[in-house]
């Protein structure tokens, strides 16, 4: 089979130290995005297990599969979980969820957990869209904006680009930074136009690293304009898959004049973590109400 340059690494983990049977509140968040799906299981507010995989063509199946993978080998079943929240683009298609919450609120909450309460501005660079979110010290949204029209500057756009350039997606960032001089950004980050433009640049004799630099820089600028609208206050952190792309992150940091916080967890998990935390809050509330 030909190499698939877009393919990023799926992953799963569970804590060897936590005995979930002894814990009080078990909740899960399932984030079904257009490109990737995550399930995070939390016990008493700590991450116990997670899985991160590509979304299939069928959302309910993707939700079931990612949950099954997260549970694998833990002895836990879906019925042991007190509350499950679905989020993301496909959140209405999580058949076993007790409730859905939007990805905006979940990413805000998840970022607060991942980066700590000092975070005030969150940029989520997901598979299908980008969101700029301002949050308070509890992880509650105070202002948000997303670009509802164009899928540019997203994980899907990056996948298409990696494939086109024949560069493994995990290497795009590093290769794009391996340049002597920063080229002008490609004029469009729209997947379709950027593709044509990139092909043109390659034909004109540009090396791959330079074309990648021009693309990463265009993406960075595009999300910069989103952030500018809601106003950036530090601390600033990024969630979603593109947070792993240094070529975009470094250029964005430069434009903002700010350094993004270093993530303690896989940035793709933020939405599912936030969802699981919402679940914990709801369980505690209902127990208190008796």
């Amino acid at each position, binding site marked *: 089979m030909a190499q698939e340059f877009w393919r990023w690494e799926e992953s799963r983990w569970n804590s060897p130290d936590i005995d979930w049977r002894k814990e009080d509140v078990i909740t899960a968040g399932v984030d079904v995005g257009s490109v990737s799906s995550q399930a995070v299981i939390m016990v008493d507010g700590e991450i116990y297990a997670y899985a991160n995989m590509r979304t299939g063509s069928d959302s309910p199946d993707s939700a079931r599969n990612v949950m099954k993978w997260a549970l694998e080998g833990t002895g836990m079943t879906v019925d042991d979980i007190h509350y499950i929240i679905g989020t993301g683009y496909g959140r209405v298609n999580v058949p076993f969820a007790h409730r859905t*919450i*939007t990805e*905006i*609120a979940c990413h805000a909450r998840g970022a607060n957990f991942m980066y700590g309460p000092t975070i005030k501005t969150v940029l989520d660079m997901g598979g299908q869209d980008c969101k700029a979110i301002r949050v*308070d010290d509890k992880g*509650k*949204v*105070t*202002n*948000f*904006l*997303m*670009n*509802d*029209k*164009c899928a540019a500057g997203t994980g899907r756009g990056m996948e298409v680009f990696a494939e086109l350039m024949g560069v493994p997606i995990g290497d795009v960032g590093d290769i794009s930074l391996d340049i002597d001089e920063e080229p002008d950004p490609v004029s469009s980050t729209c997947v379709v136009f950027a593709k044509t433009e990139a092909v043109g640049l390659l034909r004109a004799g540009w090396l791959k690293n330079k074309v990648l630099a021009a693309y990463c820089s265009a993406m960075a600028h595009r999300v910069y*304009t*989103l952030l500018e*609208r*809601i106003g950036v206050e530090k601390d600033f952190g990024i969630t979603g898959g593109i947070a792993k792309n240094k070529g975009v992150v470094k250029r964005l940091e430069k434009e903002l004049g700010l350094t993004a916080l270093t993530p303690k967890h896989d940035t793709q998990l933020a939405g599912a973590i936030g969802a699981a935390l*919402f679940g914990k809050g709801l369980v505690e509330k209902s127990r208190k109400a008796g």
Partner: protein
Amino acid sequence: MGYIANYGYADGSGTWYVIIDSGKCDGCGKCVEACKENVFEVITDDYDDLVAIVKQEKRKSVKYLCNPCISATGKENLPCYLACEKGAIKHSW
């Protein structure tokens, strides 16, 4: 305390967002009736409050939906602004 929600998009021609302040909005639904383009709906949000939002399927076209309205009445007298006693609705342009 509420949050400011920006619904819409930015493109080469400008910044097109309908902005709703959930801290001011009480979910009365008057904007829903006032807007002939059916831009709004009232939902229960993630924090369990009633609030107006811009419908998902309208977010990609707020520029085209609102511009005729803006040229007809001027920005001060938009049906949605007049309907909203709380002053919760704004446009970014």
